[in-house]
């Protein structure tokens, strides 16, 4: 039985030019969706059906994109959760966070909560779906992966380590069908209270690398941080675990 996969897409923002574009991680979410279910993939966007960027997604070979038509000031979560609840999907794929707007990364979590589904964060690949479970590779820092088995249905956020989105072709993108239906009309109050200003570049914390050779520098950049500062606590009591986290936060001056 083919699985029902839905990829959620948003309007991205190019880091250099600030121009609207196919968002990098959402593009990867579509790419993974295409790998899993080919032309069966459903791609959904909450926003404006006239948005030209949607054509860039469609150029990946999508016959149509479903648009939950709504104004920019409206909350995408409301539209999406209503829609997803009606679709009986197995897996919903999204980027980790959007490239524009609040970019809080909360959308997948709120959706998961609304649907009562588990959320699998930072997925690099979904290897196989069988007997109602999916074999998932999670992305860890420095190119490492962790294998996990997840029961369907679930929401996955796609990490930048996942397969890159394929080239978008102009012709198919132009001809794809934009299937619009009206979305929910719920004002995004949080967003409405925000004001946007260009970020000030913050000074970076310098990491001193005392490497003398190129090989050393390479190691410093790629190797797992070794040493005793990390601790795996499995058998300790909950209080002990909490205390350890608390101590760390104080040590790192997160709380005073």
């Amino acid at each position, binding site marked *: 039985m083919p699985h029902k996969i839905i990829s959620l897409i948003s309007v991205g923002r*190019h880091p250099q*030019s600030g121009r609207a574009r196919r968002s990098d991680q959402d593009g990867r979410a579509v790419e993974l969706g295409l790998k899993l279910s080919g032309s069966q993939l459903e791609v959904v966007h909450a926003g404006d059906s006239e948005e030209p960027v949607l054509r860039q997604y469609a150029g990946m070979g999508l016959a149509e994109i479903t648009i939950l038509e709504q104004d920019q000031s409206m909350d995408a979560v409301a539209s999406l959760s209503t829609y997803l609840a009606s679709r009986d999907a197995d897996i919903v794929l999204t980027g980790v966070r959007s490239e524009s707007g609040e970019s809080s990364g909360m959308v997948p979590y709120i959706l998961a909560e609304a649907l009562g589904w588990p959320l699998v964060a930072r997925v690099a690949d979904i290897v196989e779906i069988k007997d109602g479970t999916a074999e998932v590779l999670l992305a860890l820092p420095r190119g490492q992966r962790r294998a996990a088995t997840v029961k369907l249905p679930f929401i996955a956020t796609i990490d930048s380590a996942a397969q890159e989105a394929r*080239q978008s*072709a*102009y*012709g198919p993108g*132009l001809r794809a069908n934009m299937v619009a239906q009206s979305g929910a009309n719920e004002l995004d109050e949080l967003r409405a209270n925000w004001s946007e200003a260009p970020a000030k570049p913050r000074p970076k914390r310098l990491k001193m690398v005392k490497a003398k050779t190129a090989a050393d520098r390479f190691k410093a950049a790629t190797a797992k941080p070794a040493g005793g500062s990390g601790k795996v606590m499995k058998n300790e009591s909950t209080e002990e675990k909490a205390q350890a986290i608390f101590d760390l936060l104080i040590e790192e001056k997160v709380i005073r």
Partner: protein
Amino acid sequence: MVIDWLPSVLIVALLALGVIGALRRVNLWRAGQPEKVNLIAGLLAMPNRYLKDLHHVVERDKYMSRTHVATGGGFVLSMVLVLVVHVFNVQERIVAWALLGALALMLIGAFFVFKRRLNPPERLSKGPWMRLPKSLITFAVTFIVLTLPAAGILPEGTGGVVLIVVLSIGIVIGLGELLFGMGWGGPMKHAFAGALHLAFHRRPERFGGGRSTGLKPANLEGAVIGVAKPSDFKWNQLLGFDACVQCGKCQAMCPAFAAGQPLNPKKLIQDMVVGLAGGTDANYAGSPYPGKEIGNAKGSPTEVITAGLVSQETLWSCTTCRACVEECPMMIEHVDAIVDMRRFLTMEKGETPNKGSEVLENIIATDNPGGYAPGSRTNWAADQNLAVMKEKKEADVLFWVSDGAFDMRSQRILRAFVKLMKHANVDVAILGDEERDSGDVARRLGDDATFQSLAKRNLATLGQYKFKKIVTTDPHAYHCLRNEYADFDANGALEGVEVLHHTTFLNQLVQSGALKLDAFKGGKVTYHDPCYLGRYNGEYEAPRELLRSLGIEIAEMERSGFRSRCCGGGGGAPITDIPGERRIADMRMEDVTETGAELVAVGCQQCTAMLEGVVEPRPEVKDISEILVGQLVEEVH
């Protein structure tokens, strides 16, 4: 005598069969897309185009041009007279003698064709082409003997039935090749298709010494963008493919072929012929695409070309250097065809290889191929004190900087050019951050949508300001601005504006005395013609004159001027990066080294990058403006 009638019946029969075949062939071309041509004017112009333009190209090979005049001219004349004498039975002796003269001329020509075919160079196709001189000779000899009685040299009826039978066999062989073969796809097809191709050429501006090198805009509204199947070509492009004589002149000049990349322009055109007629390449008797066997390609007018006829790597190997087009005696347009097929791959399939997709995405999102912040485009000029059009609004010269602005090596060229202009007190301004990529790379990579969008946006910016000239150091931007933007310039932003390459402009400054230069005292110097300056725009002289004005005697490479070999940097080739056995830039550097030069002068940032990418030791590479700057006479105040 009983079978006296046989020769004339045979002539008429073969003529009729030839005509039927020709009509069938015409139908194959008509499967292509409509394209308006002026039928009458084209046909009327055809003889002149043949005699002047085509022969201008053939003339580069004196042996072949004379041979062709004798054979072709002799044949056309004899064919007309054969009909007069042997079919309509005109009994005038003088006509018979004229026929004998024409046949003799043809025989001499055919003999020289025969001689060339004794030990043919690799570029020539073999197969049926090897039998052509024999058929030509058979034709000439047969009709000479057949005409002798009419000319009064032999009495009527000499030789009796036996001779008539022998001559009839000669007629079948000779006319079979020349008339039947012409219509049914034999080697002589080139005469019939070639003549019509000259009449209905898609770029009539090329005739009479003109130049037409800008690509035609893609129709972005069609059901399919670009060329997927042979029938997606314009009908006169298909006709053009059919005109190929398989002389291999294009193959001999193609840098990608020489580098062992899987491209041979002759084979490509022949594959297009296979595609338009349907079938396989099994009968192709020329050099293959390097590394690919012959016999596996098959296609038809309605089958996708890259699904079995031509591989994608073949199409991406081309640097769009136009060496093949320049060399082709039949004036076939290889580059148009290649880009047409690339358009399908990029805009319909999204299959631009290697870095292609990334570069295109960058161009779309940032208006430059490197993906740099558009607001950093003018960083290179922070210390140059250059006027920006946004503030100045008006200047004599608009300096089109191009994407070299983002590249540190190219910035040296830009700075040198600015210094020269300042020295000559040129009233100049740049667009600054308002400038965008010219669209050259996007267009050559098949993304005409992006090219058109860039062209329109650049033109809208240009339209806001007043200037008399645009000068650029980048021949690719030069080509776009000069030859390709006009198709989108609805508001006349470039009307009356002179678009110049910096070498042309600098030469004007030097000749008018605005720039004073010292003699150059370095070693031997050679000059590399950039394809997009030379073959695309016909500028061979200005750079040379500039070098001469420094007292440099240019040690010319064997392949220079219109025969210059590409550096390998055009057409997005470094981006698609199709592997071969050698690198084109290395081969070009060998050409340079052969002259013994210590310095190679170029006029293009891309050529500079390609040639400097060759491992040392090698001659130094400098843009002409960099050489000039070194020789500036600084005035002491």
